[in-house]
């Protein structure tokens, strides 16, 4: 053995976002579908970034978060959904998600962050819904690992239990309105999109999630 082993160099967060193991070399982004593509810088989700979706209970947050998976999933990327105890599988298919490449961990019990970390190397997109307010430390560790591994983390939260750290992209549902005829037809979501860098300014968009075919579309 060596008399000493050099300590692992600690890299700056900016650098960490861009380096990754050679074996995992791949595109630096994960594709994003309409209507979201036109609302985010670069029109895609940057690997290693954290996206937070925040919506009041029952007002479209889950649909929105699932719709962020659809394009990448349809193009062959793997996704995992942690902490969504009763996923609406039919709705996911309608949104365009390919179920053959989705792993679900519906009830991670107390180990949502650990389960999410276990899945990081295996999927490109990781949707988590913490069962209660996420602890600062757990969120920090998960986000650090996501940055290292080049996965995209999508955290689903509520205003009364917000994600404890600032996100790279932040989708906040401020209003949800159903349009119905003889049945539920479409839901218009008012979504405030903000984030870091180019997205810092923030903008409000009205999108339809789901529409009459169950998909997400621009208003």
């Amino acid at each position, binding site marked *: 053995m060596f008399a000493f082993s050099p300590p692992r160099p600690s890299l700056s967060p900016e650098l960490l976002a861009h380096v990754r193991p050679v074996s995992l070399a791949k595109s630096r982004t994960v594709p994003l579908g309409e209507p979201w593509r036109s609302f985010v810088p670069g029109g895609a989700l940057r690997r290693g970034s954290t996206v937070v979706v925040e919506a009041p209970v029952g007002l479209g947050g889950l649909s929105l978060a699932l719709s962020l998976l659809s394009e990448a999933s349809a193009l062959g990327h793997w996704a995992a959904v942690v902490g969504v105890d009763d996923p609406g599988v039919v709705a996911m298919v309608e949104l365009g998600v390919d179920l053959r490449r989705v*792993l679900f961990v519906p009830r991670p019990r107390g180990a949502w962050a650990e389960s999410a970390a*276990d899945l990081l190397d295996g999927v490109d997109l990781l949707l988590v819904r913490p069962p209660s307010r996420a602890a600062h430390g757990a969120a920090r560790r998960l986000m650090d690992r996501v940055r290292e591994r080049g996965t995209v983390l999508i955290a689903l939260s509520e205003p009364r239990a917000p994600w404890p750290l600032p996100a790279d992209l932040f989708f906040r549902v401020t209003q949800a309105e159903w349009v119905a005829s003889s049945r539920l037809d479409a839901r218009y979501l008012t979504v405030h999109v903000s984030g870091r860098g180019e997205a810092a300014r923030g903008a409000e968009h009205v999108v339809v999630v789901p529409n009459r075919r*169950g998909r997400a579309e621009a208003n």
Partner: protein
Amino acid sequence: MEQLLAVWVESLALEQPDGSTLRDTLALLDSLDALCPFSEGVRLGLYALPLRGPSRFFGGDEAVMRLVRECVLDVVGTEPKLGVAEGLFCAELAAQRELVVPLGSSEAFRRAQPLEVLGRKDLTTTCQRLGLHTVGAFADLDPARVGERFNRHALYLHRVARGELSEMEGQRDLRLARRLAQLRGEEEFFEEQQGFFGQRGAGDDRADAAAHRVRRRLGAEAVVVASLRGGRGPEDRATLVPWGSPQANVRDLAPWPGQLAAPSPATTLAHPVPLQLRDAANRPVVLNTRGTLSAEPAAVIFSSPLRREIIWHAGPWPLVERWWSRHRRRAHLQMVLASGEALLVVAESSRWWLVGIYD
């Protein structure tokens, strides 16, 4: 279906750590190949060959069995158990019982087997309570009932029981051929085995490894995969099975009469939650025999203090289905609450259940 000669070699069934099992298997298969070029290693301990060709060549079934027996004795040094039947499932059972099932009788042979041969204890127990003791009795159940009562794996076993599938999941070791080729030192490229999710790539292997990690942490049932099957409501159409279960990727997307149209709820409750509907005068709203509502619903009550105003509803859309031979009346109702939430509820046997949330 083709008659197979199944060869059960007990001494090769349990793999020894010194590699001798695999070497003996290879030697045995090479010798069997001299008798019949279509001999195959099904898994360690179980080998099979089609009987018709060799039987014609060597002058009858008895002659082939004698040769095979001698071959196993020569190479491995133990007595095999031999059996003949149509299809691998029946052939293995025939070998265990050392029987020759004549051509055309395999159906009756399969149906006469005790349910235990399907290898699922819960299914055996439940069926025995229903007075079903044989594979044949289980096979006669309506597949729809089996699907409702058990999970997808049971439907798969049901197809085996009915003879629609000639071999059972787990009978065949898909890696054996590859391991034998490696032992031979053949450099030939083996096509990647068709895995759980169809054509496999590096991404699939990484996902498999990730699923394994979570299972180690949380238990075998913690990771699930989903698929769709036929059905009316979204709660019927979703199939969630533990990752790694057989046949989890079969999708049945044929049009289904009376299917509830999109959009579907983003949350679909695996275990529906009971609730009550009340009209403006706070009387219970029920689904009457004509499939209409007794009154306009004005509020939904989840548990006594939790009451929400209904601002819009649509339906009921009735479903009449058979469920264990009894007519079952169900109806779907969509509603939007004053809080902005939208729900999918189902009426069944005069009670209301929450089955979906459009969240």
